[in-house]
């Protein structure tokens, strides 16, 4: 189910947006720009949940309108920080 598929050209902007704001991890350098549909759908849901629009998992009009809205450049989902236990072990 995690089979990588090429991202259609007309959706690459949304994928880049989801990646930029922390909803989607950066593309695997081995597979280039490929993302799994599940990962993209999950990222869209995450974005919709954060923005407070219906969680459809697809880039519907409400979602696209938000993507086009001017905004702050910082990610909404911050990278996870290493926990203290890991640091101590190192």
């Amino acid at each position, binding site marked *: 189910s995690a089979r990588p598929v090429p991202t259609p050209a007309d959706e690459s902007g949304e994928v880049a947006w989801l990646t930029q704001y922390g909803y989607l991890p950066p593309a695997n350098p081995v597979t280039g720009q490929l993302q799994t549909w599940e990962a993209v759908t999950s990222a869209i849901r995450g974005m919709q949940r954060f923005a407070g629009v219906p969680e459809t998992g697809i880039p519907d009009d409400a979602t696209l309108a938000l993507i086009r809205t001017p*905004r*702050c450049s910082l990610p909404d989902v911050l990278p996870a920080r290493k926990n203290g236990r890991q640091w101590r072990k190192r």
Partner: protein
Amino acid sequence: RKSRGRRSAGLAWTKRNISWKVKTYPREARLGRETIRALTHYALKVWSEATPLTFHEVGGSSADVSVEFLRLDHQDGYPFDGPGGMVAHAFFPGDPQRAGHVHFDSDEDWTFRSPDDYGTDLFAVAVHEFGHSLGLAHSPSKRSIMRPYYQGPVGDPLQYQLQADDRTDIQRLYGMARPGSRVLHSTEKPEASSLLPDPPSLPRDFPEFPDRCSSSIDAVAQIRGETFFFKGQYFWRLTHGQHLTSLRPALSAAFWRGLPRSLGKVDAVYERHTDHRILFFSGPLYWVFKDNGVEEGYPRPVTDFGLPQGGVDAAFSWPHDRKTFFFKGGLQWCYEEAVGRMDEGSPTHTALGGQLPTPVDAMLSGSDEVYAFKGRQYWKLERHSLKPEKGYPRSIARDWLDCTGELYPPPSAPT
């Protein structure tokens, strides 16, 4: 569990007194520099009112929070993209290299008190970005100022207050404001001491202040050892150490009580060394002040001095011989304050002619030197001959008014 720690980027400032500075401004903007600085002040004040934090503006090169207007890729990993899209960003306190850096996209059409369709409200975005600077992450709450999407103006900067969620989040990092504590305004300096009261605070209607870094000067005076630069209805004040009391100019009529608010500009100001009264000249009239209150019976016509009815360009007073020199066009007058009359032979052709562009805008005498001001430049003059010394003209903005870096507009542009 849902909210705990979610809104915080995990780190906060350890200090409570935080300095700030607007380092660069947009090149082409509807908003003037002073408005941008005022909005920055009020956006920070929103956060200081909920916490024990205080913010103060500094004029030097380094500040804890530095605001810049930048374009496109500016080498921090968050390139801007022209109008729309990404409008601003700020770095968290935990960022070792960039904590306190706040960047606005210079290509946005930044506005203030304009309808949403006309641009992006700088105050709304600034409050959001300073939230990041203090350690807050984005919020999913539609009412939060930390929601990542630009939602239009948030209202009057003087009235705006944080929503309960935002207040709770920032207080989780810094605690609550101390009861009875006073917000330190950027016009105030804790160390400021002076014979004269503090300049007035920012008027409610945000007039467009003159820009000290690109303005010519109407008049300059040394009063009780402090230097005052007058421009239009405003003045800047330099303390004994030649440091600006505030980067923001103060309204002359609010400080010099009795000077008409309708007065467009002053031509000349000086302290009379015989009795330490302060004299203001504007067009055909002059006023005499004791400290910062006008004396009874003023204004009076400048013809009292034997000056022409149209007034003067500049004046300065020598403490050594208690003589005052007035300048108008290519002429100068010497007035003997002790006896209250013009020197015989006045006016004469000024010694400034041929050496400096005339008419000069302003003259200033220190304890042992004389300066002439014209446009955005000044000259130091030899005391007796009034001929310019070598190495002049120099920049007024850079040497007197604490403007560092690139002066905008460039010095070659018309004043």
